[in-house]
């Protein structure tokens, strides 16, 4: 099979798993070596254990073309991937996950990208849990509102052309908005269907679906703030009509006691609404503060690269 003449960068977050890292890197290396002329494996380490770091440093002397970036502190996975995207040099960049994506989908997704799609989005062919299935359409609807139109069953796997990488990384502060920015470059995109690894594990559950949806919402749009303001207006209208009602009732009924249940109900509802609003305000305020802060979204504490002994030429030179 002919090797593809494009430089591919594979970005992967290190999952604190000492037992699998070696075989993962080996299989990545074998797969990439078989399919591409040249490539790099960019490993992002979110401050994993020292034993894993030591292990990786040893692997750097055995497996070529690995770049190992250690982040100074833990950040959201999207930010860590964004760090990889910003530092990758490839013509094509693949966001890959050790525990979710099989290694051989890399060459397929890159080939699909070579067919003229700047962005290829991975989508799993498996079924999700019932909870997730129920909530997903709702979340999808909401996300559509903020411009994140992601195909059904989308996973974290992506392949981006250099042009798309540049568009994403040059769009200002993108670290927390990685996946939405990838979707919104305006370049042609397509979907790559594949079977995920370890399918029945954690990821696609109701809880995760909601958390992910909220994360995307909060970091990508101020629309929820509007919704909350709307809710606030509604709440105050209710409060206003209730006070009117209590005044009116005061004149027409003698036994005020009667309204007690409604009052309790209303006040507690209003309190609930108020707290929801406060929670969102808190979230946004935090975000504003983060944005205002000059601190980087991530800090790389070091980068190490493979140093593998080079092959000596075969000694078959004929001496005349």
């Amino acid at each position, binding site marked *: 099979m002919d090797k593809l003449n494009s430089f591919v960068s594979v970005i992967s977050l290190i999952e604190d798993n000492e037992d699998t890292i070696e075989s993962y890197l080996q299989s990545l290396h074998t797969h990439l070596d078989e399919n591409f002329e040249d490539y790099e494996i960019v490993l992002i380490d979110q401050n994993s254990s020292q034993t894993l770091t030591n292990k990786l440093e040893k692997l750097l002397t055995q497996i070529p073309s690995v770049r190992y970036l250690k982040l100074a502190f833990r950040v959201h996975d999207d930010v860590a991937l964004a760090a990889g995207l910003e530092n990758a*040099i490839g013509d094509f960049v693949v966001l890959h996950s050790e525990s979710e994506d099989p290694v051989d989908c890399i060459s397929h997704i890159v080939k699909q990208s070579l067919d003229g799609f700047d962005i290829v989005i991975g989508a799993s062919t498996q079924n999700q849990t019932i909870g997730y299935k129920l909530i997903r359409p709702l979340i999808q609807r909401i996300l559509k509102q903020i411009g994140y139109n992601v195909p059904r069953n989308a996973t974290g796997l992506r392949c981006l052309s250099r042009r798309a990488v540049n568009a994403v990384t040059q769009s200002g502060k993108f670290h927390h908005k990685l996946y939405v920015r990838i979707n919104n470059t305006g370049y042609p995109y397509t979907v790559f269907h594949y079977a995920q690894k370890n399918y029945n594990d954690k990821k696609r559950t109701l809880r995760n679906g909601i958390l992910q949806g909220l994360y995307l919402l909060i970091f990508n749009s101020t629309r929820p703030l509007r919704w909350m303001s709307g809710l606030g207006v509604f709440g105050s209208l209710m409060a206003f009509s209730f006070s009117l009602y209590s005044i009116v009732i005061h004149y027409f009924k003698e036994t005020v006691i009667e309204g007690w249940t409604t009052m309790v109900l209303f006040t507690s509802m209003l309190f609930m609404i108020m707290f929801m609003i406060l929670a969102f305000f808190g979230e946004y305020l935090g975000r504003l503060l983060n944005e205002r802060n000059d601190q980087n979204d991530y800090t790389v504490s070091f980068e190490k690269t493979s140093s593998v002994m080079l092959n000596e030429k075969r000694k078959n030179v004929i001496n005349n």
Partner: protein
Amino acid sequence: MKADTDVIVIGGGFFGMYIAEFYAQQGKKVILFEKEQDFMQHASFANQARVHNGYHYPRSILTALRSRVSFPRFVDEFKDCIDNSFEKYYMIGRLLSNVTAKQFELFCQRIGVPCTLASRKITSLVNPNLIEATFSTVEYAFDAVKLKLAMLDRLEHAGVDYRLGVCVNKITQAGTNLTVETLSVANDSENESFSANQVLNCTYSMINDVLTKSQLEPVALKHEMTEMCLVEAPDELKDKGITVMCGPFFSIMPFPSERLHSFSHVRYTPHFQWIDSKDSPYINGHNYSSNIEKKSNWNRMLLDAKRYMPILDQCQYKKSIWEVKTVLPRSESNDARPILFKPNHGLLGLHSVMGGKIDNVYDITLELSKHEKYLTSI
């Protein structure tokens, strides 16, 4: 017993030549051995040709200041070998950089080197997302071939007896003198031995080769198999040199001896690194570099660098030069003081010296003068 000569210098790189002349000028009888058929064929040729002016060492003020002092001296001593006709820019990387633009500017002020914000002409060529700032600076390049010819002229003038194509194989103590056994490279049955009061081991990446062959303890040295690319720069960059600081970045600079630009990259220039130690088998750097399969990293250097400056895509790759670069392991974390000076290492009268950059030669001769007492006949 009287020795054949006062001083034997091993290694005809820039350091060996300079030191041979240094002793000859003091009236000593000097023999210089170089295993290649010509001088300065290794590190003294295959390097970036930068005459350091301090900019490179924002993490080690001391080294920077020393460079700052050597710079005018070197430029003056080797006027005819210096290319000062280009504009030099230092850019500060935004990601992965160990230094910020502000820190760099402050550092330049502190060591007293020119550093001003560059004009639009150059900043319009860079990607502001990856480059925080671009400074216009003053730094020169040397022409390694002219330098070789100038040094050869000086050797002749000083009366140094030099032998090309002769490899030093072993050094042993013979009373108060040292015996140096040599091999002719062209014909390995031709061996000779010489005696001398002092032997200077100026073989750079091969320092431990000479030492281990003489059954002496090796010095802790780190080696890198490096690749530097030579390119034809695009017109806009022909009269410019650019270095991105301070991390895994690239540098493109005029390479006067070939009328090209050298292109190197902190991440991709070193292909493999190793440390000489007693526990692992010794790697002969020169043999290793001529035996390995040389798969160029040019593509990677370019892919990375053109993210910073898209115009670099127009560089035309010509060739790569491969060489073993040797550094002291301890200077890794802060780039400090890159010279090795090991007087009487293993044998009385055997001194191993190495400089991390060309103008370190002044630090070495200073050390040699300081130790004059026990470097002269014992």
